[in-house]
C-alpha cells in the first residue's frame, strides 16, 4: 500500500513538470496554431533565470575572516550579507522562490519578443516549417546558454527549511515509511496553483473568454472587431511565463544544464499528443497520468516482469494511445487532422 502511494507521489512531481510544459505548448498550439519546438528552451531559460538571480544575490566581496587567528585569512561574503546581515542571508537562502519574481517579467518579455519577432511570421506557414524554425531557435538559445553558463549542471539549493522530507504517511495515518521531500510537495502545490490560475484566467475573465472564442474561430472573432492577434501575443507570453516559472521551481529537483529543455521537450510533446493536440485539460491530465505511469513502471516488481519497461513506457503509452485514439485522450475533432 505504502509503495503504491510513494509511486503515485513520485509520479506526481514529474507529472507536474510535464503538465506545466505541456499546458503552455498546447495553449500556444490551440490559440496561435503554432507547433513550438522552442518551448522546452523556454523552460530551460526559466531555470537559468533562477541561476542568474542566485548569481546576482551572491555577488561577493573578500572579507577578513575573524575566526582564523593563526594567519590572515579571507572569505567570500556576499554583499547582501554585509549590508543587511541576517536579512541578506535569508534572501540568499530563499533565492529560488524569490527568483520567480525575477523570472516572471523576463519570461513575459522573452515570450513577447519571440512572438513578435519570429512566430508571427509563421502563422501561415506549414506545421513542418514551424517545427523546423522553432527547432533552430531552440538550438540557438541552448548554445547561447551553454556559451555563457558552461555545459555543467549548476545546483540550486532549496531553502534550508525545506531541505528535508515530509512525513506524509503520518498525516494520513499510514505509518512512517511514507516520506516525501518538502520541496516536491511545494512544487506540486505550485503547479496546481499555476494550472488553476491559467484555467481560471481563460474561464472566468472576459479576456480569457475572447481568447477561447479565438481558439474556436479566429476569423469570426476578428470580424467582431477584436484585435485577436494582440491577445494571442499575450497568450504566447503567458505560455512562456508558465514554462519559465515551471523551470525556476524545478531547479532544486534537477540542477539545470543547457540541454534540460530538449530533454523535457520530447516528453512534453508526447504528453501533448497523448492528451490531444489543442486540448488544455487533456494536456494536464496526460501530464500527470504519464508521470504516474512512469514512476510505476520503474518499480522493481514491475521491472522484473517486463525488463526495461521503465525506459520505454512513455513512448509505448503514446504509441498505443495514438493508434487506438487518433486524437489523443481529449482531442477535439478537426484539429491537426490533415
Amino acid at each position: 500500500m505504502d509503495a503504491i502511494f510513494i509511486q503515485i507521489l513520485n509520479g506526481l512531481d514529474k507529472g507536474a513538470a510535464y503538465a506545466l510544459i505541456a499546458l503552455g505548448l498546447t495553449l500556444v498550439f490551440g490559440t496561435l496554431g503554432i507547433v513550438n519546438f522552442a518551448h522546452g528552451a523556454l523552460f530551460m531559460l526559466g531555470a537559468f533565470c533562477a541561476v542568474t538571480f542566485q548569481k546576482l544575490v551572491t555577488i561577493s566581496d573578500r572579507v577578513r575572516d575573524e575566526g582564523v587567528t593563526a594567519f590572515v585569512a579571507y572569505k567570500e561574503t556576499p554583499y547582501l550579507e554585509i549590508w543587511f546581515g541576517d536579512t541578506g542571508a535569508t534572501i540568499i537562502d530563499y533565492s529560488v522562490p524569490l527568483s520567480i519574481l525575477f523570472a516572471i517579467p523576463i519570461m513575459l518579455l522573452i515570450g513577447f519578443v519571440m512572438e513578435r519577432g519570429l512566430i508571427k511570421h509563421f502563422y501561415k506557414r506549414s506545421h513542418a516549417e514551424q517545427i523546423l524554425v522553432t527547432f533552430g531557435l531552440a538550438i540557438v538559445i541552448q548554445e547561447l546558454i551553454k556559451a555563457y553558463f558552461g555545459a555543467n549542471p549548476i545546483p540550486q539549493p532549496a531553502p534550508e527549511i525545506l531541505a528535508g522530507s515530509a512525513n506524509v504517511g503520518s498525516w494520513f495515518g499510514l505509518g512512517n515509511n511514507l516520506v516525501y521531500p518538502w520541496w516536491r510537495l511545494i512544487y506540486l502545490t505550485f503547479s496546481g496553483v499555476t494550472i488553476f490560475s491559467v484555467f481560471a484566467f481563460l474561464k472566468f475573465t472576459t479576456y480569457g473568454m475572447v481568447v477561447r472564442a479565438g481558439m474556436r474561430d479566429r476569423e469570426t472573432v476578428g470580424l467582431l472587431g477584436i484585435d485577436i492577434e494582440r491577445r494571442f501575443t499575450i497568450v504566447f507570453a503567458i505560455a512562456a511565463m508558465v514554462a519559465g516559472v515551471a523551470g525556476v521551481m524545478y531547479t532544486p529537483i534537477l540542477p539545470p544544464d543547457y540541454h534540460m529543455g530538449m530533454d523535457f521537450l520530447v516528453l512534453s510533446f508526447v504528453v501533448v499528443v497523448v492528451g490531444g493536440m489543442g486540448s488544455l485539460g487533456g494536456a494536464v491530465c496526460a501530464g500527470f497520468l504519464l508521470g504516474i505511469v512512469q514512476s510505476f513502471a520503474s518499480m522493481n516488481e514491475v521491472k522484473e516482469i517486463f525488463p526495461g519497461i521503465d525506459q520505454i513506457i512513455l513512448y509505448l503509452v503514446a504509441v498505443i494511445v495514438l493508434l487506438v485514439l487518433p486524437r489523443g485522450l481529449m482531442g477535439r475533432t478537426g484539429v491537426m487532422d490533415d
Partner: protein
Amino acid sequence: MTDMKKPVLNDMLLLFIFSAVILLMPFWLEPFGAAYPDLLQKFAIYGIFAIGFNILLGLTGYLSFGHAAFLGVGSYAAVWSFKLLTMNVLPAVLFGVLFAGALAAIIGFLSLRRSGIYFSILTLAFAQMSYNLAYSVLTPITNGETGLQLDRSDPRILDRMFSEGEPAAGLPSTDLFGVTMSGYPGFYFCAVILIVCFFISIRIFRSPFGLMLKGIKSNQNRMQYTGLNTRPYMQTAFIISGMFAGLAGSLLAVTDPLAGAERMQWTASGEVVLMTILGGVGTLIGPILGAALIKYFENIFSSFNDTVLEQAFSFLPESVLDVVVPLMGLFVGSGWQLTLGLLFMVVVIFLPGGLVEGFNRIFKFIRSGKKRKGLVEPTQDQASE
C-alpha cells in the same frame, strides 16, 4: 521544383557531373581544408542518409523524426557481421540494409496509420524506444554505453574457414577482398555507393512510383478518391528510406567498426532533418549539399579556436581584436552549433526551398537580367495543406 517542367539538366548528364564532383572531392576540396579521408567519408555517408530521408520527406511530405533508429540498426548489424562472419564489408552492408529495412517495415506499418504531426510523434516514439532499449535491456546485443566493438576473440566464422594459421596481432580491419577500408579506399567505396544511391534516387523521382508519391504529397484524399490505396506506396517509400539509412549506418561501421546507441538518439534524427531542409527538400542534389555543409561545419568550424581566430584577424588593431575574437569565438569551436542553428533559421525563414532554391533564384536573376524580362515565378513549391 522540377515538377512539371523539363529538368534543367539531362539526368544522365547530371549523374555524370555528380559522379565527377564526388570522385574528385579529394582534389577540389583541398583549398577548403576538407580533403582528408575521415571527413570525405562522412560527406558520402551522410549524403546517403539524407538522400534516403529525402525520398520520404521530399516525395511524400511525411516528416519522420525517427530515422536515426535505422542508422543505428544498420551500424549494429554491420558490426555483428564483422564479429560473427567476416571482415569483408559486403555482407556487413547487406545485413545493415536488410535489418534496417525490416525495422522500417514494422515501424512504417504502424506509424503510417497517422499523418501530420501524429506521424512525426509516432516515429519519434519508436526511435526513442529503440534508443532507450539499446542502452538498457538490449545490452547483450548492443553493449550498452560502451558501444559495440570488435574483439580479437570474435568467431568470424568465414574468415577462419578460409585463412590458415593465427591471424596477425591486433584488431583486424575491415576490407573489401583484401583492400583495407580505411582512408581513401574507404572514401572511394562510400563514394561509389553514394553515386549508385544518387542514381536510384533519380530513377525513383522520375518513375511512376515517384509521381504517385508526389500525388500523395499534394493531396492524399484526392488520390484515394480515384480508387487508389495509398498505403502500399507510402509503406514502400518508408522502407526504401529506412534501407538507405541502414546503408549509411553500415557504412559508418565499415569506416570505423564500432556502433553506439547515441547514433539512434532523436538529435541524430533531427540532424538529418536539418541536412535535408538546409539543402532543399524534394530536390535531387539538395540533401547531399546539406549533409556535406553540416558535416563541414561540424568538423572544420569546431576545430577553430581563439588562437586560430587571432591569426586570421591579426591585421586588425589590438583594441578591435579584443572585441572581435571573443565574439567570433562564440560561433566557432564548441559553439559551432550556434552557427548551425542560426544558419538553419535563416534558411527556413527566407529560403523555404533550401540552398537549392537560393541557387535557382540567383540563376534566374542572372538570366532575367540578361533577357530584361520581369517574369517572376511564384515560389509555391511547398505542398498545400
